[in-house]
């Protein structure tokens, strides 16, 4: 899964704190960048942006115009964490540091362009890759997670009956309805594939089971175009961190968990039960 180190600009243009604003403006112009990390003896001491430059006399020192509070990330920071940081601080770029030394810069436009690849264009939901990464991140933070996998029942028939244009509209509506029962910062909804939706949640296992029921119920209660019936079958699997140390192992366990939930949703569909819970597992180090 991509992290900041995979997409950051490594050809850093920096400036010293005792250089002039005029020189900073010249560098920004020459290299077509909107900000420069300010570096003294190889260490990051600030950042100066084109906005700082516009508001300062060209004769000033960079140290007298720069921001001393720099929001930094490490190379292994996930793209979603970087996005959250940028939005939280209302900034356009993050400096990437290792041992206090700047090694790259990631801009908002570059980040958003990359993240766009992980967003489903039809529904606006995240795609499967986001779910996998988010689940791995939550496990790494020591949180207990549950995966809810929801498969729409016989959605192919809707496509055949109404055509794919209406099928797509219904998928958008499904996404909207499901969003309505999610809690920000707790539940992370994604369109996993076609007519499959998945949630990673930090709710307790029992609460996750209740959420799965709610998801199934809101779909059943929704009024759909042309009076079609849209229902779903859900599987729930929960897990918590065991003895994992390496990220590669967590990816395996997350994949296992998603697979368990997916198989449970298939069984629910087969057994004509709205929700099947497969239990909570201790995620062990892969041997």
């Amino acid at each position, binding site marked *: 899964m991509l992290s900041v180190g995979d997409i950051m600009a490594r050809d850093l243009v920096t400036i010293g*704190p*005792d250089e002039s604003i005029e020189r900073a403006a010249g560098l920004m112009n020459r290299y077509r960048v909107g900000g420069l990390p300010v570096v003294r003896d190889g260490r990051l001491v600030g950042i100066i942006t084109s906005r700082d430059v516009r*508001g*300062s*006399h060209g*004769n*000033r*020192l960079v*140290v*007298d*115009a720069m921001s001393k509070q720099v929001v930094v990330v490490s190379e292994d920071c996930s793209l979603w964490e970087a996005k959250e940081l940028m939005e939280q601080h209302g900034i356009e770029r993050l400096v990437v540091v290792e041992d206090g030394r700047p090694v790259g810069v990631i801009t908002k436009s570059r980040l958003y362009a990359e993240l766009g690849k992980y967003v489903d264009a039809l529904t606006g939901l995240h795609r499967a890759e986001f779910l996998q990464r988010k689940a791995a991140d939550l496990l790494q933070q020591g949180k207990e997670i549950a995966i809810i996998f929801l498969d729409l029942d016989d959605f192919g028939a809707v496509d055949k009956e109404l055509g794919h244009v209406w099928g797509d509209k219904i998928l958008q509506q499904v996404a909207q309805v499901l969003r309505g029962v999610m809690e920000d910062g707790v539940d992370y909804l994604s369109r996993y594939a076609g007519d499959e939706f998945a949630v990673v949640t930090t709710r307790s296992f029992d609460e996750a089971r209740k959420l799965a029921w709610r998801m199934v119920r809101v779909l059943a209660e929704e009024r759909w175009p042309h009076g079609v019936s849209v229902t779903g079958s859900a599987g729930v699997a929960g897990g918590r961190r065991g003895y994992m140390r390496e990220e590669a192992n967590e990816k395996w366990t997350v994949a296992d968990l998603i697979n368990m939930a997916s198989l449970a949703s298939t069984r629910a569909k087969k057994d004509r039960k709205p929700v099947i819970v497969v239990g909570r597992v201790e995620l062990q180090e892969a041997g």
Partner: protein
Amino acid sequence: MRKIDINIGLSEFEIPPMQDILLVGKKAAIGPEAIRQMVSALSPDQYEVVRVDHDIFEAAVIKKSLVKLLPQDKLLPLILEEGACLATDKMVVKARVHIGVHVSRVVDL
């Protein structure tokens, strides 16, 4: 025929070039750190740079001997108030401050 007039003005460079106090405008051509470096090179340990929360000025450079006579929290608001009447945020204003101490004592005979 072409002639060139040359006028030369000589005077002693004042060290330090500032007097008792400098008020540094927020958009002045020189900022507080640059001034700190200048005064520490020209007059080591004689001046203090104080950051201020003010509409026009962002810092004041004060001669340390002045704040021995009058505490900074009494002196600085006066100087900022007067400075703000004539300065803009693009200026660096220098101020000369004279503090007179009047003492009247009674001695028993």
